[in-house]
């Protein structure tokens, strides 16, 4: 592959199109918009003591094959000093199909671990103290079910529910736009999300029942400005739904959390997080009258890597992840996941997963960049870009409001179309050489080096083992209890005033499978009809 132009340029604008001043000066900085760390307007972070009080959580996304395979990887990562677990689930579990379903069969255990029922989760966390570790689940369409399964697992292990910490992603709106693991139509999905959040506020007060995510729309093509704007707009949609279902915003807002990608444009990323944090607090305060600062705190996790990683010359990805992790630290992230360098084309090997983990440990404990709170605060360029970013985000949110809100924009396919067009633009910029990717469109090697030597393979027998275990559970569980809890779930789904969570927990305890629960709810609610627009 040849380079489109001989010489790359530095450029004068960020990836999202913000102009970067050649010489920024004090005239670009307004001290009132900056404030102090730990208090409104939160530009400088949500904690007065930054990372000195508590370092970000080092949390590596991991999961593949059977629960036994993944349990072994978790024990390895915890032994190496990882401080939180992040569960990757396979697509059948995410989309609500049991492993024996013909749609599910080719995907069992491929992009994550298969968890079709409580017995699998008991294996997944075998030997891991759920009261001492925080666990994050990237789960959306079936988030309520997986959360119920986690509660049932804790019950069986004798861990008090109030001790549980962690997160379920549980952000269905962005699934319709970018990630695609939707199941039900928008309205019942919003109800299910409100149910989990209101239930979790009581049952597991230290657990985050939602992580409103911009990461996936960003990876799909959105700019940094749009990533933050769509996410805040979705966040407000959840706040409205929770209020409709009787929630107290000052209470539930304390447990809303967020999730983003970090890409290569360093100052833009730092500015994105500072602007988003400031704007979220302002929106909750102005629109909903929230004054309790704990409820105004914008807590977020990040992924460093994703689509910014490329297959050619894959070791370069280690450098990319390092730069992105620094942006996350200067942006004040609460939890960081660093992708492995081979993640652009495979599930990481144990070696590459370890380097990703070490990258964070080196930045945390060797580099010293986390010693001072918001160390880039007051930088002319960073403060200027933060202001520009906030204005840009506000503008995009207004466009969504003008269209009729996020739910309408999604049901019509309008938002999806915007992202697709943006993705084409992004690709064209790379093809033209306006965006530089070292080793791919510039400085590429003629031999097209792509391999990394070591490749990871999911055990080819994993799916067969999963199916075998699944059949055994269905044969040996108490069939009467399974049918009784399922029937109760079906009745509760038909009644909009019920909270579904207790019914789902009962189903999990009875070893009802994910697919069975989903089918029962589908019978009541139907399925989302994707608006296919191009």
């Amino acid at each position, binding site marked *: 592959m040849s380079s489109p132009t001989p010489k790359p340029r530095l450029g004068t604008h960020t990836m999202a199109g913000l102009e970067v001043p050649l010489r920024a000066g004090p005239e670009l900085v307004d001290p009132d918009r900056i404030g102090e760390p730990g208090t409104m307007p939160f530009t400088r972070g949500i904690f007065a003591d930054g990372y000195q009080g508590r370092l970000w959580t080092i949390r590596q996304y991991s999961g593949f094959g059977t629960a036994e395979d993944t349990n072994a990887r978790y024990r390895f990562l915890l032994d190496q000093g990882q401080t939180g677990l992040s569960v990757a689930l396979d697509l*059948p579990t995410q989309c609500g199909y049991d492993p024996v379903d013909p749609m599910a069969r*080719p*995907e069992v255990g*491929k992009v994550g671990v298969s968890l079709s029922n409580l017995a699998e989760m008991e294996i997944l966390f075998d030997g891991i103290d759920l009261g001492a570790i925080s666990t994050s689940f990237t789960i959306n369409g079936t988030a309520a079910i997986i959360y119920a399964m986690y509660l049932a697992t804790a019950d069986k292990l004798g861990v008090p529910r109030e001790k549980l910490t962690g997160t379920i992603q549980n952000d269905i709106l962005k699934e319709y736009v970018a*990630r695609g693991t939707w199941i039900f139509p928008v309205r019942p999905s919003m109800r299910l999300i409100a149910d989990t959040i209101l239930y979790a506020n009581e049952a597991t007060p230290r657990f985050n029942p939602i992580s409103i995510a911009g990461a996936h729309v960003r990876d*799909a093509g959105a700019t940094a400005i749009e990533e933050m704007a769509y996410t805040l707009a979705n966040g407000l949609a959840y706040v409205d739904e929770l209020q409709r279902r009787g929630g107290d915003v000052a209470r539930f807002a304390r447990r809303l959390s967020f999730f983003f990608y970090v890409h290569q444009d360093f100052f833009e990323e730092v500015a994105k997080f500072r602007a988003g944090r400031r704007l979220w607090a302002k929106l909750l305060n102005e629109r909903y009258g929230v004054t309790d600062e704990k409820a105004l705190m914008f807590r977020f996790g990040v992924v460093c890597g994703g689509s910014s990683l490329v297959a050619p010359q894959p070791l370069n990805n280690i450098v990319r992840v390092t730069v992105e992790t620094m942006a996350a630290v200067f942006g004040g992230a609460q939890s960081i996941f660093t992708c492995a360098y081979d993640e652009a084309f495979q599930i990481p090997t144990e070696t590459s997963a370890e380097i990703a983990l070490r990258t964070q440990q080196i930045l945390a404990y060797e580099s010293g960049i986390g010693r001072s709170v918001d160390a880039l605060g007051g930088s002319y360029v960073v403060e200027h870009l933060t202001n520009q970013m906030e204005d840009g985000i506000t503008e995009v949110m207004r466009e969504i409001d003008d269209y009729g809100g996020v739910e309408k924009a999604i049901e019509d396919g309008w938002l999806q179309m915007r992202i697709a067009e943006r*993705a084409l633009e992004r690709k064209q910029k790379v093809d033209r050489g306006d965006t530089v990717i070292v080793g791919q469109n510039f400085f590429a090697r003629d031999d097209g080096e*792509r391999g990394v030597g070591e490749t990871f393979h999911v055990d080819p027998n994993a799916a067969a083992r999963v199916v075998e275990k699944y059949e055994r559970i269905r044969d040996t569980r108490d069939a009467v209890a399974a049918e009784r809890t399922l029937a109760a779930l079906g009745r509760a789904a038909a009644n909009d005033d019920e909270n579904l969570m207790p019914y789902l927990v009962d189903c999990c305890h009875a070893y009802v499978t994910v697919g069975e629960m989903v089918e029962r709810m589908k019978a009541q609610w139907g399925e989302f009809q994707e608006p*296919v627009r191009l």
Partner: protein
Amino acid sequence: MNTSTATTVDNGPTSTPLRGKRILVAKPGLDGHDIGAKVVALALRNAGAEVIYTGLRKSPQQIARVAVDEGVDAVGLSILSGSHLELVRQVVECLGAEDAADIAVFVGGTVPHEDHADLEALGVRGIYTSDQPLAEVIAALAAALA
């Protein structure tokens, strides 16, 4: 099945090497990563092709049926979940069962090099990844369908 045909997005210099070709862009299985499929669909349209996009979560049977009903010249399968070998095999079999083995099959997504030979043995005519320029993909398709 709810499929779509597209509006035009400016794709720079106008050249239409795929004029007269009908191409189905499809997402088999449960993989929800559709942006690559959509970008390619838009680029193929800008290159002159008539493009039909299936949307997410289609079974191999559904894809083969649409390919036959729409009388397409080619099917592009987008798969990023690692299930490409199994899903491509199933789509090829379904096309055969529909007496449509002459429809060219292309694959895009996350496909390790070591799997290319197996896919080609199934009859796949081209395999593309996200780091390839769109112009290169279009040129390859135009040559294969000439």
